[in-house]
Structure formats: structure tokens, C-alpha cells
């Protein structure tokens, strides 16, 4: 089992300024501290839909890598996405799922099927050809770069340790300023750099949602 922040840091080392990244819930808060960037797509509107937003982005911008940092509870809400993405087969889509076995943003309750469900197995059965699973951080650190150099769609299950229930400021994900910054950055060719104020730690905007759904 891997520490989430260290696991995300291993991904971040291979993410460029041109890449679009869609992290969800607890992962999103860790991610925007590791990689504060206007091309983080943070506002998904309803639980489970990040990978579907990602499919739209990947189809619309085939010149860019689109990287989803999903959760296991989120994926369970939208399992059809595995089939739809495999069918559409965008070469630039990378779907990582952080499996911690809990709805961490909603009280830490266990997901159904915890410990028995194989997300990698479901992805394979859905038609994904490039699927892998990691529970050892050192091995993942060695392979993360190669995974992100593959032709998509790629599905990766990351077995991580839950960080427990945490209070979060969701305006950092759902605020209108976040979406505007993303749109501006993408429209500008994704050249925004890390000094974007859109994901600053100060809470601006409204949209104080928990689950966002």
C-alpha cells in the first residue's frame, strides 16, 4: 500500500506544463499542492464524472495528454466510463484510480466490495488493453514515466493508504475562478505556468460543496 502524496509526487515528476490533469476529492487537494497549475481541471459537477470530462477533453484536444486522478468510490459511481473510454479509445487519455477502499470525502465509510473488487480486472473486462496495478511505491516510481509515455487509453490502479476524514475547502475545486483559469489556460495553448492564482490556498468564490453532487 502506498502513501498518496508520495504516489502523486511520482506522477507529477512526469507531468509537463502542457498536460491536463483531473484530480478528484482528497486526491485533488493533495495534487494542487504538488502541482498548482491552471491546467488542473478540478470542477466536475457531480461525483464520478471526472473520467467522462476527461474523455471529452481528450477527444477535443488530441494533442494533449489528459490524466485523470480518480478515486475508487468515484469510479464505482460511473463504471460505464470504462467501457465508453475503451470504445472511444483516445490515445491521449490516462486514467489513474487511487484505491483506498473508502469514501474519504464523505466520512470514511467503506466502499462496497472493499478488498474484493478488482478495478484493474474491470478495466480489462471493459476492453482496456493497457492496464496495470501498483501497491509498491518504489516499483511505481520506477515505472510511472514509462506508463505516461504509452499510447492510451491507459488504466492504472494505485493501491494507497487512506488519509482519513479531513475538512476541506471545496471552493478551491468548484469556484468559478478555477474554471475560468482553466479555460483561459487551455485557450492560450496551455502555457499557463505554476504561478496561477486560481488554485491559491486562499478561499475565494462560493460553491461550498462537500461531495459536489
Amino acid at each position, binding site marked *: 500500500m502506498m502513501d498518496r502524496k508520495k504516489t502523486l509526487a511520482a506522477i507529477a515528476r512526469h507531468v509537463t506544463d502542457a498536460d491536463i490533469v483531473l484530480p478528484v476529492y482528497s486526491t485533488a487537494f493533495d495534487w494542487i499542492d504538488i502541482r498548482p497549475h491552471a491546467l488542473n481541471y478540478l470542477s466536475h459537477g457531480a461525483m464520478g*464524472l*471526472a473520467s467522462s470530462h476527461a474523455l*471529452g477533453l481528450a477527444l477535443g*484536444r488530441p494533442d494533449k495528454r489528459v490524466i485523470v486522478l480518480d478515486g475508487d468510490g468515484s469510479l464505482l459511481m460511473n463504471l*460505464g466510463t470504462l467501457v465508453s473510454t475503451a470504445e472511444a479509445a483516445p490515445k491521449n487519455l490516462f486514467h489513474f484510480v487511487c484505491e483506498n477502499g473508502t469514501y474519504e470525502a464523505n466520512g470514511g465509510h467503506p466502499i462496497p466490495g472493499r478488498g474484493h473488487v478488482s478495478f484493474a480486472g474491470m478495466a480489462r473486462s471493459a476492453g482496456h488493453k493497457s492496464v496495470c496495478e501498483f501497491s509498491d511505491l518504489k516499483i511505481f516510481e520506477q515505472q510511472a514515466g514509462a506508463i505516461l509515455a504509452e499510447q492510451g487509453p491507459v488504466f492504472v490502479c494505485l493501491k494507497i493508504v487512506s488519509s482519513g476524514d479531513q475538512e476541506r475547502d471545496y471552493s478551491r475545486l468548484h469556484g468559478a475562478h478555477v*474554471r475560468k483559469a482553466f479555460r483561459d489556460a487551455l485557450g492560450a495553448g496551455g502555457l499557463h505556468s505554476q504561478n496561477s492564482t486560481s488554485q491559491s490556498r486562499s478561499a475565494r468564490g462560493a460553491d461550498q460543496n462537500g461531495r459536489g453532487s
Partner: protein
Amino acid sequence: MSVSAGAAAGLSGESIIREIKAGGIQFVVSVPDITTSEGLLRPLAKGTDPRLIRICKEDEGVAICAGLSYTGKRGLLLIQQTGLLDSINAVRGVAVEYQLPICMMVGLLEKEVGVPPRQSKKYGVRIVEPILEAMGIAYHEIEEQADVAKIRPAIDKAFADSKPVVILIGQRPS
């Protein structure tokens, strides 16, 4: 309430597809709907422009169209009203609260030809427009051939205003 089916002229699927293309739609994202199955979805599936993306559930499509909209590409979600009802939360969060141009073409399952949706005998049809009004979503009824001319302006307005729109298909296009 009088619910007598009026004489409604037929609806040309070919002309609807022409309007979709004229509206700049590059991707049609769809779960099959029996009202639009033969007249719209099947001919769209034979072509490559717009590209058809088949999905498993309608709320996926709301998010896919959202992602497309950020890239400057226009998507159209082609579904049945049952799927619209199933996707209310995604429409609420993604389309309405985020003010995104999610264009939905919705076949009205079991709507009687020539009968306005609100006067349908079918509960599942009657409730659609009031729900859209409650959510503040613009909608247009496409029941007769003359209505087809509403499609392109509706799509253009959705993208100009960055707001969702629903285009209700009231009878099976030929």
C-alpha cells in the same frame, strides 16, 4: 384537459441532421432512444461527421460534452427523456451551476403525436417541461417540420450564452 392527437406533419431526420451540422456540432454523444433511433442515430452512425460517441449512461455524456466545450468543440447529447431524468444531478451540477453549453436533444418516449408534452397522458412526458423550467433550462419543442429551423439558433445561443439547452423531439423523424 383535452388530449386529442392533432394532425402533425412528419419530421425529416435528414433535415435535423443538416441543422445539427449547421450548428457546428462535431460530436454526437448518445445512448440510444427509440424516438430518434431510426431517423437520427442510425444515419449518424453511418457517417463520420459529426463523430458518434456511444456511451453507457447519459450523465457520462453531460460531462463529455462539458469537456469538449472547454476545447472549443461542440458536442450534442442525443438521449431519451428517461436518460435526462436519470441525469438530473449531472445536468444540475455541470450544465446549470457551471453555466456550460450542454446541448441535449431528447426524444420523448411515448409522447402522442400532435399532443403538446404537457398535455400527454403519460406522466413521464408531462413532467419534462416543468422540470426544465424549475431548473431554469431553455427548451424547444420539435414536433413538426417547421420546428426544425429552431435547432441551429438554439445550439448557437447555448454556446453564445454558455448555457444548457434541451431540444425535445416530439415524434419519430423519418
